[in-house]
């Protein structure tokens, strides 16, 4: 590793350590339960318009019902906008309406915070669809994540109550006070760096070679800001953040990297503040930072090796594996982006993961398969992580001879049942089971570009990305077919709502419990042992579940490459 790369990696580590606690403080101030004065006005207007009784708290079932209602409505509305965009305004290029399956896939994709794109944005979506369809969901989906995590944390810290908060209030505050102002600020920074923000039609330009090139413009910066902050990942352009209009400079690249993880990390510290114990937050944060660092290290090492098949052709191995990477970003920025975006369930990319070495591509895939809990999506990362914490304290609790408890709440059969449904079942169901249909049926395999282990990796990555609500693609799979659009939509729904409903039930169940004061017999959940065990549980659950399938994909590819075998 050269020292410039090392300094860059260390810079991001330090920046995250500083930024995330700050974000936690901001989140607490913005999502605080009672507010008066001028700041309260916007939310009052929303409640008044929508007829929400902000003072009334909901139990977990009401909360879940409201959440599902809002999300189902979101899917339906977005589906209609996309299907009929040719009838709607702001379509200067005259783009046609989307096919039913692409509209469905995209509607589900943006509502579930996945932002998987079976299409190229600039050539498919009208400005109306981008701004009023996709961007709206870009705000609502992270707000949904924040709402769920707020309910879960309330369940952990409240005692003997049925109420877990008011979904509409949590949602409104997340959008109005967190996502909107931060996006505005971030969009301005991006515009400053050169990202376009206009409503102009595409312009044509002559390249140096004399060819004609169409330059699509539009409200890029505004969508870009929430794409990153809300861990959405759906780019305005097909090549996402590798496009110079989405990510023009090294500074814009660095800002995007930090913005991707800041809200997810910030929520961890919000949790610490709500629990009245910042050590709990640091423990969870450590359990995110350490695997992140390991992943960056592995991916960087793998990509630095270069491609052994390219060396005989005269490529200097010291140049590392530059296939599919932007020269202006180089290895380290591409690797950081790949790891951050898959850790964060964001899905934006600034390099093509499909072109990474076998192990370099394995790392982003594993990051998603771990359950998107290493930072993870806004909200979804922390609620997933907290469920892993419940599983961890269960095993740890038994090993110290006590009924397990987390933050003084006993973890009993009901919580275990729900935690298993939330953390263990949905991911394998979406990735392995639905993916198995895709890889075994001719209609699924038809879209694959590569034979052998790499082809399998492409399919595995697609279904992993969809189920993990990540949205990044390994490319190589032509996914815009009736078959894949429908199955991927199903995987996204399972990956999103599969955990959310049981997690809200856990919140309700925990809120009703007494809080037991800690004693020397209580296993502390803020020490190094807990962090190590938590990481161990996440790694083992992830590794054990996907190891055989990964062995057929990237692992087989890696060892075959070393052995000089090509497919």
């Amino acid at each position, binding site marked *: 590793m050269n020292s410039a790369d090392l300094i860059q990696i260390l810079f991001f580590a330090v920046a995250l350590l500083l930024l995330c606690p700050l974000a936690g403080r901001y989140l607490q101030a913005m999502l605080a339960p009672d507010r008066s004065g001028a700041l309260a006005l916007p939310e009052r207007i929303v409640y008044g318009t929508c007829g929400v009784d902000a003072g009334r708290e909901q139990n977990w079932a009401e909360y879940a019902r409201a959440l599902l209602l809002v999300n189902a409505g979101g899917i339906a509305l977005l589906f209609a906008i996309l299907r009929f965009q040719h009838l709607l305004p702001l379509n200067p290029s005259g783009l046609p309406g989307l096919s039913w399956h692409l509209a469905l896939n995209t509607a589900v994709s943006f509502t579930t915070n996945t932002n998987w794109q079976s299409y190229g944005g600039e050539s498919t979506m009208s400005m109306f669809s981008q701004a009023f369809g996709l961007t709206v969901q870009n705000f609502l989906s992270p707000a949904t994540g924040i709402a769920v995590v707020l309910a879960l944390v309330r369940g952990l810290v409240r005692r003997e109550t049925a109420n877990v908060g008011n979904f509409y209030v949590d949602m409104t505050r997340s959008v109005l006070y967190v996502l909107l102002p931060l996006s505005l600020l971030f969009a301005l920074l991006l515009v400053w760096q050169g990202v376009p923000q206009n409503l102009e039609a595409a312009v044509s330009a002559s390249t140096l070679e004399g060819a004609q090139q169409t330059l699509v413009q539009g409200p890029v910066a505004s969508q870009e800001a929430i794409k990153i902050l809300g861990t959405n990942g759906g780019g305005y352009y097909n090549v996402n953040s590798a496009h110079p209009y989405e990510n023009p400079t090294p500074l814009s690249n660095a800002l995007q990297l930090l913005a991707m993880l800041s809200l997810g990390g910030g929520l961890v510290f919000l949790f610490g503040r709500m629990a009245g114990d910042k050590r709990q937050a640091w423990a969870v944060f450590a359990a995110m930072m350490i695997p992140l660092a390991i992943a960056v290290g592995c991916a960087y090492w793998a990509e630095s090796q270069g491609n052994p098949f390219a060396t005989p052709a005269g490529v200097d191995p010291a140049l590392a594996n530059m296939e599919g990477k932007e020269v202006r970003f180089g290895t380290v920025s591409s690797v950081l982006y790949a790891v951050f975006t898959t850790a964060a369930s964001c899905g934006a990319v600034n390099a093509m993961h499909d072109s990474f070495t076998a192990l370099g591509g394995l790392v982003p895939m594993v990051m998603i398969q771990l359950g998107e809990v290493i930072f993870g999506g806004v909200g979804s990362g922390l609620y997933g992580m907290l469920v892993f914490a419940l*599983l961890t304290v*269960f*095993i*740890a*609790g*038994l*090993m*110290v*001879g*006590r*009924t397990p408890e987390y933050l003084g709440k006993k*973890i009993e*059969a009901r*919580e*275990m*049942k729900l935690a*298993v449904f939330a953390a*263990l*079942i949905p991911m*394998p*169901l979406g990735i*392995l*089971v639905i*993916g*198995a*249909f895709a*890889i*075994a049926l001719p209609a699924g395999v038809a879209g694959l570009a590569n034979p052998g*282990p790499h*082809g*399998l990796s492409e*399919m*595995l990555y697609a279904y992993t990305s969809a189920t993990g609500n990540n949205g990044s693609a390994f490319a190589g799979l032509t996914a815009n077919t009736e078959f894949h659009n429908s199955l991927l939509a199903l995987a996204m729904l399972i990956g999103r709502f599969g955990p959310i409903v049981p997690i809200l039930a856990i919140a309700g169940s925990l809120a009703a419990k007494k*809080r*037991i*004061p800690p*004693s*020397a*017999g*209580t*296993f*502390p959940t803020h*020490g190094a*042992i807990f962090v190590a*065990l938590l990481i*161990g549980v996440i790694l*083992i659950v992830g590794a*054990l*579940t*996907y*190891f*055989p*399938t990964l*062995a*057929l994909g990237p*692992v*087989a590819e890696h*060892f*075959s490459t*070393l052995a000089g075998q090509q497919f």
Partner: protein
Amino acid sequence: MENSASLMSASLLKPALIESITKLDPRKLFRNPVMFMTAVIAAGSTLASFTGGGQSLGLDLQIALWLWFTVIFANFAEALAEGRGKARADALRSAQTETQAKKLAGLDNRRFELVSNRTLRKNDLVLVEAGELIPGDGEVIDGIASVDESAITGESAPVIRESGSDRCAVTGGTRVVSDAIVVRIGADPGESFLDRMIALVEGASRQKTPNEIALTVLLIGLSLIFLLVVMTLPAWASYAGISLSVPLLAALLVTLIPTTIGGLLSAIGIAGMDRLSARNLVAKSGRAVEAAGDVDTLLIDKTGTITFGNRRATHLVPVGDVSREQLAEAALYASLADATPEGKSIVELIREQKLADADANAVANRIEFSASTRLSGADLHDGTQLRKGAVQAVLKQSNVSADAETTKLVEKIARSGGTPLAVSRNGKLLGIIALTDVVKPGIKARFDELRRMGIRTVMITGDNPLTAAAIAAEAGVDDYLAEATPEKKLELIRKAQAEGRLVAMCGDGSNDAPALAQADVGVAMNSGTPAAREAANLIDLDSDPTKLIDVVLVGKQMLISRGSLTTFSIANDVAKYFAIVPALFTGVYPALQALNVMQLQSPASAVLSAVIFNALIIVALIPLALRGTPYKPASASELLARNLGLYGLGGLVAPFIGIKLVDLAINALGLV
């Protein structure tokens, strides 16, 4: 402690072996989801070996056989645990032989008819006379008798059972040694205390405990995931052109699902109950034992638990110019006629310290201690009058008043929690004997241990606050409740529970019943009243209050055994992957041989070794499951660090070595 030889004695092994086969009955297996799943896979694999074309029949059948062994070994563990319980139950049942009972028509009507004890119903009255067996559980409603309860408790000294007292409960099968009592039968046949105890130790009525249910949920969840993994694998492998046979998939699935903990889970639970009954404790449910592990507040009776049952003489303080020896000699003579434990303790103290000796022939007249005079004494042949007793009684008898020195001394002893007794010779006050509660040796260390485990101890005593504070400080308890009444106890428990604490206590009197019922874990003394025994969830046959601490330890040990074996079981899977996954895929991707880190000889031997190891590890861990993982009281962090190292890292490493050894063995034997 039990050693592994007695854990697996031949007399237990044979029936357990037979039962491990009869337990293959699907209805019985269904109670254990992981093992049920294993049996289904084994059956499927057996079928597939015959229908699979037969190219690898030998290997397929061997795999199927070892899958069946996995189930049988798990059944064996359970049967062995139950067998130990049964052996204890049989011993108890022998006390339950049919006897003749003298059934009374009424309390005033002493005419009786002879009936079999099996026909006795609740509320029947029976007369039991010296030498007869008490025909059923009940309550003494008339009379007093000494009863030999050795059949139940193993303690040979007879105990007093008396109507209208806190010691009125009698147990069927025990023998009245002296006198006669009228017993009101408390239970219909089949519902007696002994019946319940037998059912529990046999495991027949064993309900899963809350943590066991939660753990089972997790194990089912893990099994389901691995089912998904293995069932989808053929589809993924088909893209590489690999076809996987059913026996290979079955081998992979069984080695991945948590069979180790799944197979030993019920054995751990049964063995936990058994460890309690080995200590003569009867749990009314497994739930209570498990709750005991969670207890963080122990209410402990001072008398009997912290201190010896009675106050003992601890020092002699002469007054004026009297020497210590003179005081001792007088006290010794005066105490010879005092048969109370306090009086005996004076004699013991003086003899132990060799302060004086008494010549029994010198005594002309003994004045026995009585509760009304509150003193005892001796008149010697030479006319010397020696008296010992309560200070006021002695002063009154001697017709003197205490001087300032004596008054101060008496007050000082009383303030520090002791009881002062005065000794006089011929009407002259010689000095004061201090009787104090003697804290049992080692009890302070025990409480320190409990504190390290995060358990608060609260001493309950009827003493005044001053005395209580002194003893509490000496014993090292965290808190005390002085001048305790049943109401105060109940209030204390409620308050602690409101703070979210789990409280354990023991008690015997009827007035303890509400507190016993309120406490999360209530241990009733077997000598206690039926009301107390009914309210408690554990009964101590030896009536030894220190057992409360044992109950907590057994409860913890049960949870730790489960947690440790779960961790071990899951950690094992890593090595099994490295054995089986390369074996499955190297045909098409020879480069995956790099994953065969154990250098297993062939794909066939790799799969078979993993399956064999997976089955044998259950047998290897049976002693651990039955005896419980070793437990030393320590803080949660220390415990976790130790158990994680042992069962987590151990579970990661052990199968790599184990599978390699099995591989070497089966290749040497030519099995593949």
